[in-house]
């Protein structure tokens, strides 16, 4: 049975940059992009891979959706080159500075406009803010079930079997579709490298840009004014290190003193 999937992806500043190059704008409390490249948040790439594998196995359609600025079209092209059939960008200045509930509201309305779907996939946590909040808020908006931290999905007879990663193992959850699933990485969902021909084909596809008004978004629920969560400060943790020499005439004495000091510091 074909599976129609919507994958929500987020473009973020490459999180692999060295901490020394991480800068925060004191006014907006957001990371400064500078010369750093933009990438698809890592777990969102796993979500695309899961979606494309399901489509390859069962048929159906994969639609990638992203809320972001014009640059997010590059992330969507990347999703297309990995095998998504269509991609939609939701870009509207009114959405900027929305909190997690605002973004979830926008994404939920966008998925409703896409139409019929069996699965909505997201990454389990974004590589920038790491709130893990949007998937659950979004499922709530849509009135569908939500299962988080899933590494594998099997589809059969109008339902899905989800392998949810938990401490020390995994749970198998049967869920009726439609359902929203957030994806965690696994050896079976390592994002594929797009082939040259697929990159070229993706380049030729048009990505529709939807505005908040196209989606029937409640304008009272988006933007900075509607945000229920307010970020008051963002700072880089300061790492302090100091060196303490343990004296002693013999190695044995040094070891005893070291053990005593570590215990004093409650490190052992």
């Amino acid at each position, binding site marked *: 049975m074909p599976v129609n999937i919507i994958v929500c992806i987020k473009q973020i500043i490459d999180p692999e940059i060295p901490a020394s190059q991480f800068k925060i704008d004191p006014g907006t409390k957001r990371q400064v992009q500078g010369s750093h490249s933009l990438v698809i948040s890592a777990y969102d790439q796993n979500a695309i891979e899961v979606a494309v594998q399901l489509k390859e196995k069962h048929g159906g359609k994969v639609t990638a959706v992203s809320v972001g600025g014009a640059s997010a079209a*590059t992330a969507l092209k990347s999703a297309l080159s990995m095998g998504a059939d269509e991609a939609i960008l939701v870009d509207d200045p009114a959405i900027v500075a929305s909190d997690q509930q605002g973004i979830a509201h926008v994404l939920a309305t966008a998925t409703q406009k896409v139409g019929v779907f069996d699965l909505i996939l997201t990454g389990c946590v974004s590589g920038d803010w790491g709130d893990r909040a949007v998937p659950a808020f979004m499922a709530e908006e849509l009135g569908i079930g939500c299962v988080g931290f899933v590494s594998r999905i099997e589809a059969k007879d109008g339902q899905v079997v989800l392998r949810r990663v938990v401490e020390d193992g995994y749970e198998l959850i049967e869920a009726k579709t439609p359902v929203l699933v957030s994806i965690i990485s696994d050896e079976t969902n390592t994002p594929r490298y*797009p082939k*040259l*021909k697929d*990159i*070229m084909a993706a*380049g030729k596809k048009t990505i529709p840009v939807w505005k908040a008004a196209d989606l029937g978004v409640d304008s009272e629920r988006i933007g900075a004014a509607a945000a229920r969560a307010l970020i008051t400060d963002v700072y880089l943790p300061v790492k302090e290190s100091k060196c303490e020499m343990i004296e002693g005439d013999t190695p044995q004495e040094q070891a005893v003193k070291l053990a005593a000091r570590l215990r004093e510091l409650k490190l052992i």
Partner: protein
Amino acid sequence: MDFELSEEQKAIQTMVREFAEREIAPVAQELDEREEFPADIVRKLADLGLMGILFPKEYGGAAMDYISYALILEELGRYDASVALTVESHNSLCSNHIYLAGTEAQRRKYLPQLASGKVLGAWGLTEPASGSDAAGMQTTATLDGVHWVLNGTKNFITQGSVAGIYVIMAITDRSKREKGISAFILEKGTPGFRAGRKEHKMGFRASDTAQLIFEGARIPKENLLGELNHGFIDTLMILDAGRIGMAALSIGIARGALEESLKYAKERQAFGQPIANYQAIQWKLADMATEIDAARLLALQAADLRDRGQPFTKEAAYGKLFASEIAMKAASEAVQIHGGYGYIKEFPVERYFRDAKFCAIGEGTSEIQRLIIARQLLGRSYI
């Protein structure tokens, strides 16, 4: 003039960079050490379309432009020059020769196999006593009924012992010197044809280099590639485009040397501070970066001319000459910046140094590049 890459070119660059970082970089040193041909990597590259970069889709190719081709080879050369050379020689030389000079039947028979990567391509011009001096070629092809019969030896052939399809240049009319040379397609397993000694090289050790031996090798008459006695003219055309690839590969090595040096200079302390604080190091890094960018601009200029169907012989030679020479210089400076650690195999710059030397030799030495440029400047009457 537009220095901006297209979105697709950027996406290709990103894809190959990520592939090289994750799949090639971790094994490059070991492959070099063991002189092991990167067969697994080549299979993966073929799946991505990198073994049929330049020719059209109807032959299984990816129909890429030369700018994209140069970007791909730079990214591969960044971590493993041997992998880059495998891709370069397979695409630029063997495949491109069949695509540009082949009949429709030859294209349909051989190019899809080459693009799939199931069969690798090799290209044989160099002999024990001749290279760019093609008139000194000894290998002959004689027509015998419906067969061409090849006799002779080819030397230093990339993919010599691992290829399945070979393009071989041989003399068909000795009286006409280089205008009596023709090209032929040979398949592995042809009676009378075998790969000889595999070379043990200073660098590019994971790239396969072998001798080819023809002892009455009989191939069907229709395996003549291009017009009779037109092989050398076609060869010059193939080598022109190949130089874009060799330039890009060289830039990859130079960039590797710079990136490793930047990293090391920030980490390594001397006299109480990182060596990056010293102008002696800073100037080396600044020169490396400047020269790499200049080389890249030259290579991309040649690629752009080729893509637009303009003459590019001189510009491709500029690119190959400059990029290969600054690769050696950058690798040498990288070893110097690393000091003793640059001289041992635990750091990759030692390999880059050995690899870089070849770039100013393979597919036409620096001296030949200067000859080509001078001829373009002066005209052939000043030879």
